[in-house]
């Protein structure tokens, strides 16, 4: 089975990268190929990186409260570029009602504080869509 390629991204101005980095490392330890974008990425930069790196999953880490502006834009760009076979997983400070809304918009999973690495790794694995 091919190694799953995952992009872990920090969109927006938020520089708190502890969670994103721990998760990136856990995904690597679980046998996935992880590309970490670094900080202060725009939705455009993230989707372009996902395209160039040919990833199956994009993980977005947002703690700043800007998720309702950022995530829909990422989903929109994926549709525009016909990359809807790439799964999107979001983690951070996302209130329950916003999480529900994001899932309605096509986000595969939303992780709030206290989620275990094991749950997240499992979720990334199971979110991989078969190419169209």
């Amino acid at each position: 089975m091919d190694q799953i390629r995952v992009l872990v991204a920090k969109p927006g101005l938020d520089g708190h990268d502890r969670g994103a980095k721990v998760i990136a490392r856990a995904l690597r330890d679980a046998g996935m190929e992880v590309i970490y974008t670094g900080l202060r990425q725009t939705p455009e930069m993230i989707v372009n990186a996902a395209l160039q790196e040919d990833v199956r999953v994009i993980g977005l880490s947002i703690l700043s409260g800007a998720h309702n502006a950022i995530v829909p834009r990422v989903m929109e760009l994926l549709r525009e570029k016909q990359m809807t076979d790439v799964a999107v997983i979001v983690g951070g400070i996302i209130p329950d009602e916003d999480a529900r809304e994001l899932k309605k918009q096509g986000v595969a999973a939303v992780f709030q504080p206290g989620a275990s690495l094991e749950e997240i790794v499992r979720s990334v694995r199971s979110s991989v869509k078969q190419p169209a």
Partner: protein
Amino acid sequence: MTKGPTTLSGLPVQPVYGPEDVAGLNLDETPGEFPYTRGIHRDMYRGRLWTMRQFSGFGTPEETNRRYQYLLAQGQTGLSVAFDLPTLMGYDADQPESLGEVGKCGVSIGSLEDMETLFRGIPLERVTVSMTINSPAAIVWAMYLAVAEQQGVDWRQISGTIQNDILKEYIAQKEYIYPPHSSMRLVTDTIEFATRQVPRFNPISISGYHIREAGSTAVQELAFTLRDGIEYAEWAVARGLPIDTFAGRLSFFFNAHNDFFEEIAKYRAARRMWALIMRDRFGARDERSLKLRFHTQTAGCSLTWQQPYNNVVRTAIQALAAVLGGTQSLHTNSLDEAYALPSEHAATLALRTQQVIAYESGVTAVPDPLGGSFFLERLTAEVEEAANGYIRRIDDMGGMIPAIEAGFPQREIAQASFEYQQAIETGELKIAGVNAFKVENEEPIELLAIDESAAGHQVAKLAALRRRRDSTRVSAALDALRRAAGGTENTMPFILEAVRAYATVGEITAALRDVFGTYTEKSIL
């Protein structure tokens, strides 16, 4: 909270401690006397309580001004300003980078007009203000000084702090804009300006809090913070400022995490280490240079989403550690901060936590009441020794800037944070509500919601400001600033002129960016 038979930092904890564990140590120390292990004052809280300084800010300056008036009325004794991410990163509310971010993590400040609103009705000669701002610190400080000027208050009378600790941004918080050397020049400009013109102000708060929040151990937090302090002192001395003219205004900021005794040991070790560093490394003689003064914040990263009322207990224990460790100033987190900025109710309870400790627990009657404890004295010595080991390693690398460029502190932090998470995953470290004592279907709590209208409000204000102000004066001021930044003059007077002309945070930051360029980090996982 110990991980098995060690402290959270991994220092071994014996089953029992006795006189033999302190036999080799010098315990003949008095509070208020060099090297100040037991506190920087003879009487500590008997003479004066720590400042209850709750970090606060959200939405528009109008809303935040109302919260400040409320907190002051509830007994808070100093103000502490939280800015939003656009302000922290030097962007105006109407710039594309600010989309979705205005007013979310703190108050949106675009220009001097916003600072005037923020401090309306707050007399700056009587209220001290701490501002958590780093890359644009000089700009925001200039706005604060301009407001004081408008209030008719002499700069020699005002007191407060700007965080302005750029080194820890590269290490941990990541709110950098410019490259290290240019950033250090800006910090040194503010230290020089404060030394000459605003002598009661603390132009820097050398911080370990964020280093700890990024996942470091207590030992790393202490070591990297003090080594950053050494770096700032060296730059100020190289600028031509004798050590005793500025060192007394270097202030510090530490975390109060869960391992109760390790945290107290950390604060005691910090004071002893800094006194020795100032005297032996820098030749400082003035008592004020030798005394490490610090603010503490309880650990944000320890707060849980699950069973948020447990956070009240965590915060109380952490706050007690800071008080028993002799902090000068304290912020206690609110129970809902894993979810959102504090609701008014949660913010009030956080303040009450300090007031209960201060007035009901009796711990303020004696300085360093745990001094002489076999365990604590042994632990203080061990934390000091381990931290000194890190400082030596960074010295060997040529200082903190080469260490940062080599990724050393970042790598240590990434490793420590991964190990911490592993300990939670395996259950070695139990966290009530998260991986132990869990509850299904918890009751949701009421949260503060930041109105999206804050962004529109701030954007409209900026548009009106740009129409109203003297744009020739603004351009001239920014040109002059660029010239000064490209040379060796102190940039503060030029930033002040730009601020008085109502240049915006974004415009002034961009002018400096034109000269200094930007910094991109090499990510270390």
